[in-house]
């Protein structure tokens, strides 16, 4: 069982904060560009590229959180992150039809808040660390 040192813990939290901020800004930007693309069709390719890149980034973060750090249990924060990922996929499907882009943008903005908690849950090492460490 891995014991987490102070530097490891600090590194984990630093990584989690960077990840949260990146995902939050990417989702927010996606929502904003998608909303603008409802009236300005020239922005559509940028909006789609941004959304797809954000979803890939989020998927990678979830897979790392669940596979590389160990088999974490799905707690409240992990559930919120997965919920945000599902919302983003649903928003993509809704945005295919131009008149639903406002709704899709609102869902992407909501996903930004859910994605901001990605990686901030307890890792496998933390869950299994002996008491007092």
């Amino acid at each position, binding site marked *: 069982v891995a014991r987490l040192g102070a530097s490891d813990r600090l590194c984990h939290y630093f990584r989690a904060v960077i990840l949260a901020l990146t995902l939050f800004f990417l989702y927010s930007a996606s929502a904003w560009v998608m*909303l603008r693309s*409802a*009236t300005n069709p020239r922005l559509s390719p940028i909006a789609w590229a941004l959304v797809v890149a954000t979803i890939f980034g989020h998927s990678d973060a979830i897979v790392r959180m669940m596979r590389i750090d160990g088999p974490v*249990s799905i*707690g*409240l924060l992990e*559930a*919120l992150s*997965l*919920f945000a990922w*599902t*919302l983003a*996929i*649903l*928003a993509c499907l*809704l945005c295919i039809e131009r*008149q*639903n*882009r*406002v*709704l899709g943008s*609102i*869902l992407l903005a*909501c996903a930004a808040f859910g994605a901001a908690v990605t990686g901030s849950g*307890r890792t496998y090492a933390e*869950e299994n660390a002996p008491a007092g460490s």
Partner: protein
Amino acid sequence: MGATALLFAAAVTAILLVTLDRRLRARRLMDLPPLLPPLDALERVMFRLIAAGFILLTLALLTGFIFVTDLLGQHLIHKTVFSIAAWVLFAMLLFGRTRYGWRGRSAVRWTLTGFGTLAIAYFGDKFILETLLGRHWG
């Protein structure tokens, strides 16, 4: 998770419907966002989302009953009760829509109540057990 996302989207649509409806009733037509679809189109989207979410929720409950062996031991009793309550609410809403043509504010109220119940089932249950009672399980 898919059902919760679909029904969350339906709840967001319901809030949009109420906002648009209020502005129309107050005759504040200039305040209407130009990008939004008409009210009836938005309502159709809401009911499509509810129908899709209801199907997924039914599948989730059915598979849950197959795989769960001990409701009390796995701390799933609250989640199950609230999920079934949400399922009943959405079933009644869809029945009311097809049989009696429910729409407008009553449909919005049912949608928000149903999603609230489902949110308590999933997130509220986790919040109380993990954050307030400090219980973790696999």
